[in-house]
């Protein structure tokens, strides 16, 4: 264990960033733990959702941005709908993921982050999720670990034989519009970051 030094300047800055991004008042959290009690995945996290909230309250950015919890969270919203302080905890988790990407943190759950990236790549390219390509490029592109790749590939024959894998890619006429949306979102985000330095 280590001793954490808590100073006003450090704790304020990160807390405000998370509050701004998530539109939630994290200081309302009184650490009752109902989020963690109901979270189906808390057992697999290194910090329970309650501890994530606590770390944000104290402004411990490195501590919380490097944790596995924010990537294991699947946004099932159980915590958010039951929170007695009406904090949308799932939204806070989402914000922490985005901040962690922005700040260039290496995701503690690399696979999860990779999956989301590949998924969005497929959508940008095809307009719709093409599961066959998704499984293939996620598993065989060397992005996942060997173990998960083998596990995923081992499902393929079954899926194909059950007709659960389409062999031809989807044909969405809206794909051009989707490409534009991706481009525009990137442009707006670019504008935001460069706008800040102006």
């Amino acid at each position, binding site marked *: 264990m280590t001793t954490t030094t808590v100073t006003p300047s450090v704790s304020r800055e990160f807390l405000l960033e998370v509050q701004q991004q998530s539109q939630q008042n994290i200081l309302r959290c*009184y*650490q*009752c*733990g*109902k*989020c*963690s*009690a*109901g*979270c189906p995945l*808390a*057992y697999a996290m290194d*910090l*329970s959702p*309650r*501890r994530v909230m606590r770390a944000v309250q104290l402004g411990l950015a490195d501590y919380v941005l490097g944790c596995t919890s924010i990537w294991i969270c699947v946004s099932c919203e*159980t915590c958010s709908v*039951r*929170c*007695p*302080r*009406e904090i949308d905890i799932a939204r806070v988790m989402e914000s922490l993921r985005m901040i962690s990407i922005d700040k260039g943190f290496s995701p503690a759950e690399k696979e999860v982050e990779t999956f989301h990236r590949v998924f969005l790549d497929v959508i940008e390219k095809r307009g719709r999720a093409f599961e066959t390509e998704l499984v293939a490029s996620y598993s065989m592109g060397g992005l996942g670990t060997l173990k998960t790749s083998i596990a995923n590939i081992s499902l393929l024959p079954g899926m194909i034989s059950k007709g659960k894998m389409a062999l031809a890619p989807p044909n969405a006429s809206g794909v051009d519009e989707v490409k534009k949306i991706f481009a525009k979102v990137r442009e707006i985000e670019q504008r935001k970051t460069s706008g800040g330095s102006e």
Partner: protein
Amino acid sequence: MARIGVFLCYCGTNIGGVVNIPRVAEAAKAMPEVVFVQDNKYTCSEPGQLEIRNAIVDNSLDRVVIGCCSPRMHEKTYRKAVESAGLNPYLLEIANLREHCSWVHGDDKERATSKAIELVKMAVAKVSRHESLFPKEVPVTKRALVIGGGVAGIQAALDIANSGYEVVLVEKQPTIGGRMSQLDKTFPTLDCSACILTPKMVDVAQHPNIRLITCAQVSKIKGFVGNFEIDILRRAKKVDETICTGCGVCMTKCLVRTPSEFDLGMRDRSAIYIPFPQAIPLKAVIDTEHCGHFQYLKARQEGKDVPDCNICQQTCPAEAVRYEEEDEIITERFGAIVVATGFKTFDHSAYGEFGSGRYPDVISSLQLERLMSASGPTSGEILRPSDKTHPKTVVFVSCVGSRDDNKGRSYCSKICCMYMAKQSIMLKEHDPDVQSYIFYIDIRAGGKDFDEFAQRAQDEYGVLYLRGRISKIVQDGKKLIVYGEDSLLGHPVQIPADMVVLATGVEPNDGAPELAQILNVSYDTHNFFVEAHPKLRPVETQTDGIFLAGCAVGPRDIPESVAHGSAAAVKVTALFSRDTLTTDPMVSTIDQMRCVGCLACAEVCPFNAIEPQVLRDGRVVASVNESLCKGCGLCVATCRSGCANLKGFTLQQLLAEVNSLWR
């Protein structure tokens, strides 16, 4: 021409150190109608007051201005001083030279002095328009109404009655006793709730000064402090309570079975019933909603054929059953009212994640009290509702309907931490094999011997406290799986339990806001009544003569409720110790010659102090009841014809102050 005397106080150096008093005095001498000016080191001191008195007499002054500290500080003192000189005490005006001048303008003595001169000028201008005001005397009806017969109301009624005054105690239920009568033991002493409460209930029944009206509620109020006229709606009991002996034969004969309110549905009662064996009054009532006879009457009206039942009437040895009895309105006069309407517990069906009441073995803490009570549905044996077995693992869940914005209950219910400790101890006393777990957020054990008691639950009785709010209960065969987090450990935990007790919070009884509206007293967003001042006037309301006691104001435990009942009683007896009441003369007046009778004033009046009055020529005009008026002046600013005015703050007085600034 008035003869105004101006007295200027140095207040040591508090005023004199900043404001140049001699210059103010010089300026004052030149002000219109001022005939005498004097300064003093401390005007409020004994010799200072004497000087004012002498100056008034010696110089035949008829108006007084004192330049000193805030009127909120010494206005009463100076009024007495002025009165002692034979002048009407309301012919006084204070210029606030300290809080509003010297203390806030210490950085600029020159400006402070010229401001002080203007403040005195304003006071002089205003006082020259003052009139003598005379408080009114109204007689006091020395009878008290206590609404609610829980322990707070019982205490208030007994204390008032013991002081020699008549009391009417009105209770909505068929019996007095309130929540306390449902409890088994009390914390932190573990004495038996019934054993300490029932003697008090009997005292109420037997007290010559107390009249008890059950199945009743207040429906209308008129009048004001000392002279309330109140309508009490008494619902028909369909049993003549003067004849009923409480023998209970009817209850054994009645064919109907419906869940008992007193036992929170854990036992059935008959349609004609006495809520519990120690009920006061020990008289039967008929629940017309479930009674066979009344269902027959209703069905007949709808043209349906249902067999009639009048078995209770036929079998009652005292022949006390009166199906034809009607509701009645009892109108009585009272001098004071104590509101002690108490609380109910939060309905946990709002928590879907805890099963919304779907799981029979998830019970409320009050249901557990009934299970533990020797006179309860299981005669004090703790059996789970589903299969009547002895639960060995019991999980308590705190803050159900407390500290939860999600459920609209942001406040702490205060008593739950302690009653959970009590109940877990009692479970162990009942059955040494029971292991209790308590999920808590904070242990709030502030009170005499409270923390020691909660500690004892842990170190002597082995109750395990887990810090965390649970998120879900799932029925798994005969077990209930409780999902929580031990937040001290930082891990999710689950406990397979035989029974789960939800520590449901405190909320105001049904009908509290409706009663508050009838009585015209305020209530908060949670429907608790609001005190006149949360610290210094905890049992008063903003309406004179209406007092509060017990949990109607907010969550509190038994000793606090009893103390508040006594405190309210003291306020009532203090009021009754006088034969008449003096009313503040700074009230509204209506110039009835100019009044057009639009009654916009009556509409805005927060105290219902303005009523229409029909003049002899048939004209309707507004009329102020000076005993009800609190002098806010809302009517004055509302009046379109300019006929309303507020004594002490008349339009002329306020304008004189404004005008003096440019004269």
